[in-house]
């Protein structure tokens, strides 16, 4: 176990995490902080004030050149044609059969320059997939090693970042970004996140990451900013109904099954997976992602079977936990389509026992007030 850890990659903030007393765990080939003070405390900080996350493990792949847009369009299910400079979008990237290679953010930084931010665990696979499908008119570059990423998330994020930059943050809309200095460090500041709260994802050079992190923590001290780990990141995204690759998305799950219809632009003339998804859309997916609440005592966990009243297997749990903000035991899972309507009673098999649950609408949590 210990010897395995030495093979894991460290982010530029590794030393800082140890100094802050973070608990480190292996994740997607990296050694990452899972928690600092405690998942519940960090989760609450993000919902009520703000949290600071090291997400430098994420992959950054650039697509550049006159053919860049065409390559992006072929790869993703969403439509990047209408994307403005300094605007970002979320999209699945599919195999020809509609299964998901990865889910990612696309940033348009210049007319012929796109940045794809991908999951750490999928970077190598994505890079091969993308490179093999890019023509001569697009250059593919992996700049993950040259890019640190820090996420500042929570209702106090704007006020905190305001102390460190003169950039026009107030005008920066959700899913837009700008280039600016944060405490003198050149950054790409994006109004995006994975928590269901307002916030920013800040990209910078790795050698500047430590001073950026410390300056943000200092600027947020009075506002209640706390360093947070992957544990809280997962409970926050879960409550907010955001999907996790490997749980809700995989090569065996299509975006339509995962409820991502609004990110699949079937009217776009061509993209990889279109024919399969078009067919699935016409026939209706056989399985669907649902949210559910436990009616009896028990916590659903990823991989537990979902059953109907008669004990027949109808699906599986993809993610589940005690939801800290809602103080309920909740789950996400895939069920055969007949069991997907809110109000449907289902059963989670927990350690050999059938425990009753009910399908409820997603997302579980929405921040107030709505933007």
């Amino acid at each position, binding site marked *: 176990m210990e010897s395995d850890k030495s093979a894991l990659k460290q982010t530029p903030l590794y030393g800082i995490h140890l100094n802050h007393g973070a608990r480190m765990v292996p994740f997607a080939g990296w050694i990452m902080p899972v*928690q600092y003070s405690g998942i519940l405390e960090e989760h609450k900080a993000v919902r009520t004030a703000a949290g600071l996350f090291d997400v430098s493990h994420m992959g950054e792949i650039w697509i550049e050149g006159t053919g860049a847009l065409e390559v992006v369009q072929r790869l993703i299910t969403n439509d990047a044609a209408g994307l403005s400079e300094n605007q970002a979008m979320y999209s699945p990237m599919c195999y020809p059969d509609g299964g998901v290679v990865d889910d990612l953010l696309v940033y348009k930084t210049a007319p012929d320059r796109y940045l794809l931010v991908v999951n750490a665990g999928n970077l190598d696979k994505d890079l091969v997939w993308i490179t093999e499908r890019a023509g001569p008119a697009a250059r593919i570059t992996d700049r993950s090693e040259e890019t640190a990423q820090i996420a500042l998330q929570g209702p106090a994020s704007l006020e905190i970042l305001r102390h460190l930059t003169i950039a026009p943050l107030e005008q920066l809309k959700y899913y837009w970004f700008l280039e600016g200095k944060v405490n003198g460090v050149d950054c790409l500041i994006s109004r995006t996140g994975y928590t269901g709260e307002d916030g920013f994802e800040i990209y910078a050079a790795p050698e500047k990451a430590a001073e950026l992190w410390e300056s943000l923590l200092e600027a947020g001290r009075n506002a209640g900013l706390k360093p947070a780990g992957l544990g809280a990141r997962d409970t926050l995204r879960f409550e907010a109904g955001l999907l996790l690759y490997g749980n809700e998305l995989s090569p065996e799950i299509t975006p339509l099954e995962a409820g991502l219809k609004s990110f699949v632009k079937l009217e776009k003339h061509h993209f990889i997976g279109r024919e399969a998804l078009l067919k699935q859309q016409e026939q209706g997916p056989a399985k669907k992602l649902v949210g559910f609440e436990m009616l009896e005592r028990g*916590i659903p966990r990823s991989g537990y079977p979902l059953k109907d009243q008669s004990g027949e297997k109808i699906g599986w749990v993809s993610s589940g936990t005690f939801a800290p903000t809602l103080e309920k035991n909740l789950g996400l899972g895939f069920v055969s389509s007949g069991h997907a309507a809110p109000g449907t009673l289902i059963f989670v098999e927990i350690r050999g026992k059938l425990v009753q649950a009910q399908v409820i609408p997603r997302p579980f949590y929405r921040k107030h007030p709505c933007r």
Partner: protein
Amino acid sequence: MQVPDDLKYSKEHEWVRTKADGAVTVGITDYAQDAMGDIVFVELPRIGDSFAAGEPFCTLESVKAVSECYMPAGGKITAVNESLLDSPELVNQDPYGAGWLVEVELDDAAEPAALMIAAEYAQYLASLTE
């Protein structure tokens, strides 16, 4: 990490307290609760259930993970800490006190003698974190 002197300890990080009447109370150690993180769910055995030493008798769930607790000595459950059903966080806050798990009538009253004393457990913990 607290390791009270008057308890016995297992390698699976359970503690045993022998009471005046010979019955024992069982819980998890400070080290175990810290390693688990915020505990949000406890599934207790039924009163009257019997378990051999080393058998799982109770499930604790943190936000992220499910952990079994293993009987440090064989016996029959005579009481369970029902306050944990609504307040699982007591295991984190007071693992040696209000966060106790079960009371056990031992099959063999001498069995806890084979467990570690505080000094040995402290040494064991040190060896784990080396």
